[in-house]
């Protein structure tokens, strides 16, 4: 469009280059470099693969890694399944004001801080908490029930945290679904499952992918929820990174872990996009 590049162009180019250069790209190069440095003595570091070998050698680390990956995918899937009927209801079954209200109500909890939401679950689930009290009061449980500090609680918290980011893109995608297509599907003899599988889901695919990527990223990179709801048996990989940086002051090891997590999340996002044939740019702009 503008052929001539004036001063304005270069001045506009400066901030994004500084931003992406100094806050995104170079720092990641830095942790890549850092992750290949190996301590050989006090304040003495050399190039080496020790940090990655350590990751491979120590079952704790790669198990946590795999656990985080698997649970994140699981959480994403559960979130999708939980959110889909609601999104479909908002997009297609609810009308007028109800629709707007339902949609807004959906957004509301997520303006509250993640910590606040997690606190809510802690109050509900802990042994002395509300759910336990209710179970005892109704006679469903004989004594206090500890629902906190286990993987179930973590998954619950993570699914809860991801719902908004799934519902919104799903509603957006489903909103544009022409309901006569669904009717045509039934008219041509399709069953509910057929129509869902052949018409609704393909139409919602961009929303499904956008929502899934965001939820997956939020889950895999989460810290608060597993740390506060998780039990004595569970660790999230972000906690490992945090531990290396903050409680063990072993930056090279932490950098290696960070890079591994980045590779993991990028790979899964990439696979997801590949499997569903969606593009990164469009998907992220939509999400």
């Amino acid at each position, binding site marked *: 469009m503008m052929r001539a590049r004036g*001063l*304005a162009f270069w*001045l*506009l180019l400066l*901030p994004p280059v500084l931003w992406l250069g100094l806050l995104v790209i170079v720092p990641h190069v830095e942790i890549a470099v850092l992750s290949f440095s190996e301590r050989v003595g*006090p*304040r003495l570091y050399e190039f080496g693969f020790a940090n990655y070998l350590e990751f491979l050698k*120590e*079952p*704790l*680390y790669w*198990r*946590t890694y795999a656990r985080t990956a698997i649970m994140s995918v699981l959480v994403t899937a559960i979130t999708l399944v939980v959110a889909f009927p609601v999104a479909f209801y908002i997009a297609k079954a609810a009308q007028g004001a109800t629709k707007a209200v339902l949609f807004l109500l959906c957004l509301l909890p997520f303006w509250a801080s993640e910590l606040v939401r997690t606190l809510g679950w802690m109050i509900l689930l802990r*042994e002395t908490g509300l759910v336990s009290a209710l179970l005892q009061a109704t006679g469903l449980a004989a004594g206090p029930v500890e629902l906190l*500090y286990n993987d179930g609680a973590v998954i619950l918290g993570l699914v809860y945290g991801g719902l908004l980011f799934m519902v919104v893109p799903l509603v957006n995608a489903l909103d544009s679904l022409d309901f006569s297509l669904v009717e045509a599907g039934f008219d041509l003899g399709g069953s509910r499952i057929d129509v869902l599988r052949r018409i609704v889901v393909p139409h919602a695919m961009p929303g499904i992918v956008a929502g899934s990527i965001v939820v997956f990223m939020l889950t895999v990179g989460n810290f608060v929820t597993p740390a506060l709801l998780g*039990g*004595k*048996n*569970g*660790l999230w990989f972000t906690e*490992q990174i945090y*531990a290396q*940086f*903050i*409680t*063990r*002051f*072993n930056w090279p090891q932490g950098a290696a872990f960070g890079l591994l997590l980045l590779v993991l999340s990028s790979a899964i996002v990439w696979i997801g996009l590949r499997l569903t044939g969606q593009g990164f740019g469009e998907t992220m702009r939509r999400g």
Partner: protein
Amino acid sequence: MTNRRFNLALAGALAALCLATGAEAQPLRLLTWADYAPKDIVDQFTKETGIAVEVTLSNNEEMISKLRATQGSGFDLAQPSQDRILGPQQEFGIYKPLDLAQIKGEQFIASMLEATKKNTTVAGKVYGVPHIWGTDGLVVNTKLAPNVKDYSDLCGAGLENKVSFRTKRPTLIAFAFAAGMDPFASYGNKAAYTAMMEKVGATLAACKKNVKFFWEGKDPLLAGLRSGEIVAAMAWDTGGWKLNGELPDIKFVAPKAGALGWIDTFAIPARGRNDKGAYAWINFNMRPEIAAKVAASAGNFTASKGADALTQGKLKQQFQESFPQAAIDNIKWYPAVPAGIEDIEGKVLDRLKAGS
């Protein structure tokens, strides 16, 4: 066409960033533990010296990691434990040597001052002086868990889901002693130390069925002990005595293997900007009447000479009950931790937490 506006905005933002970080070097920025700088003490100090105090609460690992991240800047005075100075100092150089001439040595219990100086000496320079000390041992509900006499008893039968300890290095050290090993003697030998820690890790992993939760903050632990959800825990002495005041069945027990004695120090970060304030705070805090108040606030003992005369009788009595002379002699004081040891321990602790 938009250049001028954004240029201005950018310049303004940068200027704001610089301004926000510069200037105001006056207050003493203290990196310390909970309850070590109670408000009335801080107010009194400010009144006497005119120096304001900004308190940041922390613990050993965080202190080191914060100072490591800032290369020793951001704070003017820190309070790491005496055994946690040598290694990080060698590795990261985060403290500056103390000018002992500025510290009123006569206010300290001499033996403790000497021991601390010795442990915090790197390349001939002293980096720490003692402030607060105490011991870790067992807090036991003697009615519900009468058999807990040593650390290893926490893993005994009948205590399923009823005990607690921290996933921190004192736990490893304690269980090593309880298993008849001497971890301190192996500090210099990494291979031996690793083997020892692995063994302790295995013991603790097997013990996990007994653990209700790994405690971190003191409130949940005390609440658990109060309610009886927890019947025995590895914890600090005055915590036990505090509960003892409320519920006589709960006692602090100096374990057979020996209580673990720790000393928190004063150390000045390498890029501290208010050394004058730091030394003033140290000297102010070691005055017996101040030290007694801080010790009471923290619920621990002080290295200030003469302060114990001012502490209340109850604590003294509890101390004597928990620590007969043999138990005092059996206290294991942490020697300085060499660099690298914490990596070994860390991994064992991670594994314990992750449950693999």
